[in-house]
Every structure is written in C-alpha cells, then in structure tokens.
C-alpha cells in the first residue's frame, strides 16, 4: 500500500536549532521533500543518529527516531534493521561521528550490507565541540587543536566505504536539492547498505571549505557528474574527461586530445569496486575536479533478510520452537 503523505507529514513539531546558514537545513529540506515521493509511511521509518551537529536531524523528522551515542549509530541501526527488516532505517552521521569514533561500526555495517541508508554530512570540521580538525580535514589545517596545522593524513570517505566493499556509494552536496533528492532516492531504493557522502558547509567553523569545487563559478569546471553507462566527461561542453592509463591510473585529459572513445565509461554496477575506488581518489583536495553522483550500485543480499531467511529455514527444518523439547534435547532421566 502506498501512503499518500506530504512534506508536512514528515516534519516534526520541534524547532530546528542549527546555526543560521548551516548546510544542514538544505539537507533536511531535501529529505523532507523526498519522503512523500517514496510511497512509504512515517510510522515505518526510523532515523538513527550518533552525536554531532548533524545528529540532531532525527528530532526534526516526524518518524521514529533515536539520537544515540557518538559513533554508534550504524551499530544501533543494525539492531533495528535486523530485528525489523520491514522498516526503512536511515542513519544520519558526520565526518567525526562516522569516520573517527565510529569508524569500526561504519565499515562493518557496510561490509555486512545491512539495509540502511547512511547519510554522512562531511563538513571537514568538528562543529558541535566548536572547531577542532576532523578525520577528513585537509593536512595543514589550523584549528583550536592544531595551532601549527594538522599533520594528520585525512580519510577519503568514499574510499573508506569502497574499501569496505559497500554495495552503494554516492556523493552529493548541500547546495543542490535536486541532486541530493536524486541520490537519496537511489540510495533508498537500493537493498542493503547505501552510503552517501554529502559535502556540507559549516558556515561557522569551516565556511567555504568546498568553494573551490562548489562555488557558482567553479562548478562547471570542477564537478564531474557521474552517469552510469556514459563516458566520464565534464567542463564547458564536456571538454575534459577521465581515461585510464596503461599503468591503471585514472587521469584527467582534454577530450580533444584523446577522442571521446578513449574516455572511461562509468559502470556503477561493476562487481569489482576497484574502478569506483580509483574514481573516489581522483580528487585529493577541494580544488580539483571532483566526481559526484553514484559511484557504485551493486546487488548483494541484505543482511536483515538473510538473518530472517535462516530463521525461516530453521523453523522449516526443525518445526516451530517448542520449549519442552528444547529442555529435553540433551537427554533426560526420570527420578521416581
């Protein structure tokens, strides 16, 4: 049954308390506008978050929700999704939450392919604790905890997800609601773990971090729009593209130099995550051409359903559980 809902049905009565101008507002709006289109019911939807600015998200959704423990949302959401495969379970997390304190839970939820839609708000900074560098901050970043600049090598969130062989991996950004909604729609439709990195601006502690790619004037030359089955090209009139060199390295080239036939054709359904991994690593900073869209979307069994299938198989083979038989199962004797 398809529920007919409107954005209002998905909006809670709680006042939204992010800083004015925060990128989170745009993401919330995109999700609230998307939900009525998905034909699902608010009561069958659960948002689970960890700790951090983005993790306040569930309070603003008129669904079931849990604002849990720093880093633990993927584990807690795994419990929800495995117990109840009938539910739509979303995880809202940030770069510190998912990739620092909760890194282990994230990779294992992806590896197991639990049916979760994971939205990672990446603003490359700790906002809630007021401005320390995060595991995705660029080297050299000066923050309250790195007065001489960060010497940490950052994580590339998509590369981490693909390293864990996540079955759905995508990137979008907080300035383009339509793109977000398209990516979220595909992520929701995917069975298993979907991982979406959202480049999100923190206008208080890391303002303009992604301007090099996302500023109005930069987008055409810096954003690579991945489309399954299409040659990977970008720039005004598609003047640039991506090729794979004989050394296996992906390179950006002028299409005029190599011809369209030489361009790499994007295949999101490739079983091997290697090419998606290379694409994820095409850009190492916020000042070079960066792919957006769906990097990988492959089918493999979702964990909650596989757990359920084993339960059904056990019941079929052994019959429904009978407590008296269980208590007698290792041999008994009678005392008169």
């Amino acid at each position, binding site marked *: 049954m398809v529920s007919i809902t409107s954005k209002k049905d998905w909006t809670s009565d709680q006042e939204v308390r992010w800083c004015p101008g925060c990128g989170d507002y745009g993401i919330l709006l995109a999700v609230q506008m998307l939900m009525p289109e998905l034909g699902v019911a608010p009561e069958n939807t659960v948002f689970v978050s960890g700790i951090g600015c983005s993790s306040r998200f569930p309070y603003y959704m008129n669904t079931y929700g849990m604002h849990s423990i720093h880093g633990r949302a993927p584990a807690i959401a795994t419990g929800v999704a495995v117990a109840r495969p009938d539910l739509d379970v979303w995880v809202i997390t940030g770069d510190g939450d998912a990739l620092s304190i909760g890194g282990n839970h994230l990779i294992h939820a992806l590896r197991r392919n639990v049916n979760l839609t994971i939205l990672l708000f990446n603003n490359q900074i700790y906002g809630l604790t007021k401005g320390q560098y995060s595991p995705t901050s660029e080297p050299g970043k000066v923050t309250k905890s790195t007065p001489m600049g960060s010497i940490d090598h950052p994580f590339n969130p998509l590369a981490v997800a693909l390293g864990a062989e996540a079955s759905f991996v995508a990137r979008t950004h907080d300035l383009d609601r339509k793109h977000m909604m398209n990516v979220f729609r595909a992520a929701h439709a995917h069975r298993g773990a979907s991982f979406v990195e959202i480049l999100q601006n923190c206008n208080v502690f890391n303002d303009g971090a992604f301007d090099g790619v996302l500023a109005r004037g930069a987008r055409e030359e810096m954003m690579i729009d991945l489309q399954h089955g299409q040659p990977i090209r970008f720039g005004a009139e598609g003047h640039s593209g991506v090729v794979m060199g004989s050394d296996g390295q992906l390179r950006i080239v002028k299409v005029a130099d190599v011809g369209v036939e030489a361009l790499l054709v994007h295949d999101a359904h490739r079983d091997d995550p290697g090419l998606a991994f290379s694409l994820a690593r095409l850009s190492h900073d916020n000042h070079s051409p960066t792919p957006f869209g769906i990097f990988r979307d492959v089918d493999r069994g979702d964990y909650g359903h596989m757990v359920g299938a084993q339960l059904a198989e056990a019941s079929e083979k052994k019959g429904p559980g009978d407590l008296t038989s269980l*208590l007698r199962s290792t041999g008994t004797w009678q005392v008169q």
Partner: protein
Amino acid sequence: MSSREPEQISHVVVRFAGDSGDGMQLTGDRFTSASALFGNDLSTFPDFPAEIRAPAGTVNGVSSFQVHISDHDITTPGDVPDVLVAMNPAALKADLHRLDQHGLLIVNSDSFEERDLHKAGYATNPLLDDSLSQYRVVEIPMTSLTQKATEPLGVKSRDSERSKNFFALGVISWLYSRPIEPTIKWVESRFKDLVRDSNLAAFRAGYNFGETSELFDHPYQVKPAPLPAGEYTNISGNVALAWGLVAAGQLAKLPIFLGSYPITPASDILHELSKHKQFGVRTVQAEDEIAAAGMALGAAFAGHIGVTTTSGPGVSLKGETLSLAVSLELPFLLVDIQRGGPSTGLPTKTEAADLNIAMYGRHAEAPLPIVAAYSPGHCFDAAIEAVRIALKYRTPVILLSDGYLANGSEPWLLPDVASLPDISVSFATETNHTAADGTAEFWPYLRDPETLARPWAIPGTPGLMHRVGGIEKEDGTGNISYEPANHSAMVHLRAAKIAGIANDIPLATIVGDEDADLCLLGWGSTWAAIDAAVQITRRQGLKVAWIHLTHLNPMPRNLGDLLHTFKHILVPELNMGQLCRIVRAEFLVDAKPVTKVQGLPFTAAELEAAIKGVLAGE
C-alpha cells in the same frame, strides 16, 4: 573371571587431569553424563588453562575436570578429590596437592619417560621414589594398552594416542560401576568411522581392564540420590542461561535478539542461542563489544528483547550503551559471566568481582537492577527474572553469573513449562495525551503511575512516531529539556523507578537458625559452598543462619531489618568484599567480609573455618 561385587559408597570426588590435548574435559563430561543418567546428584568443576594448546606436557598446559557424584543432595564439586587420574607427570605435579591424603591415584605409566618428567619439572620419577607412598597408586600403561586394543582395527599407533582418554574413562566407569551404554551411544553419535571404532575399542578395553586386572580389589557404587521426583537433565550454567533467554522470549511472546562478541567464558551462550533460530532467536556476532550492545539496544527500540552477553572487559566497553538505555528507558539485558580480573586477568578462572561495576560502573546517576544466578540450574530462572524486570520497568538489567556456574553442571529438575510465569507486556498502540487545543498526542515519557515505566511504542505503530535520545528529556513529552528542575525530577524519577522494584521481588528468607548469632550473607555462585558449610556446621550443633541474594539492586525490602537481628554478619565473596561494603553503607551493619581471589570457588572447609572462627570469638 567373575565380576566382583561393588562396595556401596555415599559419594566420590574424581578429578581427571591431563594435557590440554588429552581430552580431559570430554572424559569428565562423559563420566558426568553417565552418572547423571544413573541418577546421582552431582556437581562439576572444569578447570582449564586460557591457552588453547600450551606446550604439551608442561604444568601450564594441564587441563582438569573435577566431578562430585553422590547418593544424596550435594551442591559443590567437592573440596578434596578422592581419586586423581593423572595422564602425565605434569598433571600429577599440578593436581597431586589437591588429592585426599589417602586418595586413589591412577596414572598413565607410559607417559613417565625421562622426557615427560623433564617437561613437567621432575628431577626424579615420582613413581620410583617414595614420594607417593601415602596414596594408593595404580599404574596403568594406558598408552600402550590403547595401542594394542586399537591395532586390530588398523589404527596407527600415533593415532591411537588420541583414544587413550577413553581408556581412562573405561577404567573409571568400571571402578564406579557406571552404565556403559550412554557412553557407547554418545561415541557412536559423535564420531565416525575409524575414530569411532578406535574410541569404542579403547573404552571397552579400559572397562575390561578394570574388571580383569587385579589392580583394584573391587568396584564401587554410588547409588542414585533421592532427588525430588521428576524429569532431570544435566545442565551447565551457560546452557541454562541460554535456555532461560529462549524461555523468556516465549513467555513474553517477543523475539530474542542477541548482540554478542566472543569472550571467555560467555561465548557458549552465543553458541547455544545461535542453534535455536526456530524460536525466532536472532544472534549477531558483532564487530566489537560496543556494537554488540548497540545492536541489542536498537533491537529493543524496534520491539525485541535486546540482550548482550559478555565478561568483565566487555562490561567496561558497554557502559556507555547501558547509560543510554537508562536514559531511553528501554528494556535491555546485559549478561556478565564474571571471570578473574582486572583486564584480561584469568579468562578461564572464576571470580565474582564485577558487582561494583554493575552497581556503579556508569557515568552520572544511572541506577539499574541487578540479578545474580546462584547455581547452574538457577541461571535459567535468573534469565527469565532479569528479562521480566527489564520488560516491565523498561530498564536495562545486568544479570551476573560467573565462570564457575557457566561451565559447572548439575542435575536439573525440568520445570513444568506451563507453570512458568507470563512476563508479557503491551506495546503502546494509541495516543495517551490531549493537547490544550484538543489534539491527541503521544507522550513517550508519560509514566505508568505504579511502575513509573514509560510506554513502549515500537516503529510501525501509526500515530505514535516519536524521537528518543541521550539528551535529557522533559518528563511526559520526552522533548529535549535543559531545565534544571526537570533534570532533577528525571534523575529522581529514574532512581525511584528502580528502587520501586523492591516491591516486586521476593522478600529475603533465612535458611538455618533464625535465632543464630551469626548470619552468612551470600550472592551468586558462593551458594554451593555456603550451603555445604552451613549444613556441616549445623550438623555439628552450631547455630548458623544464611541469607542468599538473587536481587542485588534493589535488594529485598526486608533485608536491612533481618540483618539487624544478628550479632555477626559474614559475607563470603569471590572478590575483596564488594557486597560487604554495600550492605555496610546501606544498612549500617557491622558485616565482615570473607574473601577469596584465587580464580577458584570457595571450598566448604574454608567457609566452615570462617564460621567457626566467628563463633569462637576470633
């Protein structure tokens, strides 16, 4: 040669000791099973090293299994073995000091070669000097006899080594007149082909060797114990606990969800529950202890009985999840199979030193109920009781067991399934509040006035969508609130909810002499040794009282009054006096601790001495 008539004895304590690879746990387990089926009362104590395979032949690698079988009601695996079966010099060295001073020592004489003696650290062969003269020593060349017995089957001599434990089992089975059919059936069901035939041949050869050799005058027999009538099974604490959880799911009509990470000595609960999927039991082996707890809590939010099982180090890691569960007021069960600590400590040895972390081991004011099992069979009831409290009061509960209960076993009178309690609760299905403008609302923190429990509204329920979180909530609405007065009210409400459970648990009862000067106050697995010590001292004419707690938080509401009626209170604990300090603080009584932290349970003799010490005015 005709069989000699068995001599009747009331009880015997047998200790099987050998190398970790010698199969002593299996041997002990089989002897136990045959004895259980024969109708004896019994209690077991597996005692093995943490290393999977310590260097063969060394004292560090010795694995032992002690079993006490009896024709009367017993609770302990026995203080002092009457019989020690030592498969090699290392086993002899490790366990000889435990043997009764006139006990029977059966050794595998084939393994007392120069090299074996050296590995065990013997300068001279103890079988050849007079160091064993106080014992009745029976030397049997078990390795070569097993070889001979299996040779006709085509078993290579090196492979026959693996069957020598069955030879030993055969000898002891004859010596104590055990029925051999259960063992034969078990071997046939467990092994295949040549291994099965080899084990059976060794077992029969050992049995016949006992009968035909002149090494023993006659066999012994321990008659069945006059246990209460009914159907029995032999059960270990971890299996009983797992079955208790399965039962709790049935009694609550809710699925069990176990999130667990492997840890000794709790892993067997994960293994056992994983086998019972036909009961709707979901088990997930999580990536770590934290995730295991988190998954269980997520499942609880979704309407399952969320359980996580662990031991000491895992309890530390799950503390943050417990605190969230306190704040979310959701049913949640943490099972802690205690072991020696701190840190890795003694993973395979017992201790009961996690009472403090269970009581206090969370940040801020985060009280929760604690239930403790006292015997292997009681683990079943304790699991149901812990789930009952968690469901009814929407609270995390800690269930304490320990390595001794987990691996020890006893005959267990099967409960009548129909008489087990109904522990089901209702999910919220409707709104529970009307706003000023007449709108029907759902308030997730509107409490039941009697239990103070909040409604449990699970995802999938239309109209009851709500958000919960670790941030302080306004009482009633559950909305985020930083109001000082509200926080104070919530801290007090959470505490009052847990304290109120005292009205919903049995009163403490006194075993023994109510007019005694001395009362023993126990909890957990010390039950067995206290029971034995109280019986012994009372038979000697001493007046002794005993109270055993299964609910440690809250405690029975009459406990303070009862304790105040005694002049002396002794609290035996496998820790440094944790319960003792709690009751001193709680009830202002002059309780004294009796402590033991050797990774071993109390012996009855130790507690007998403690009792006599107090009564003699020491």
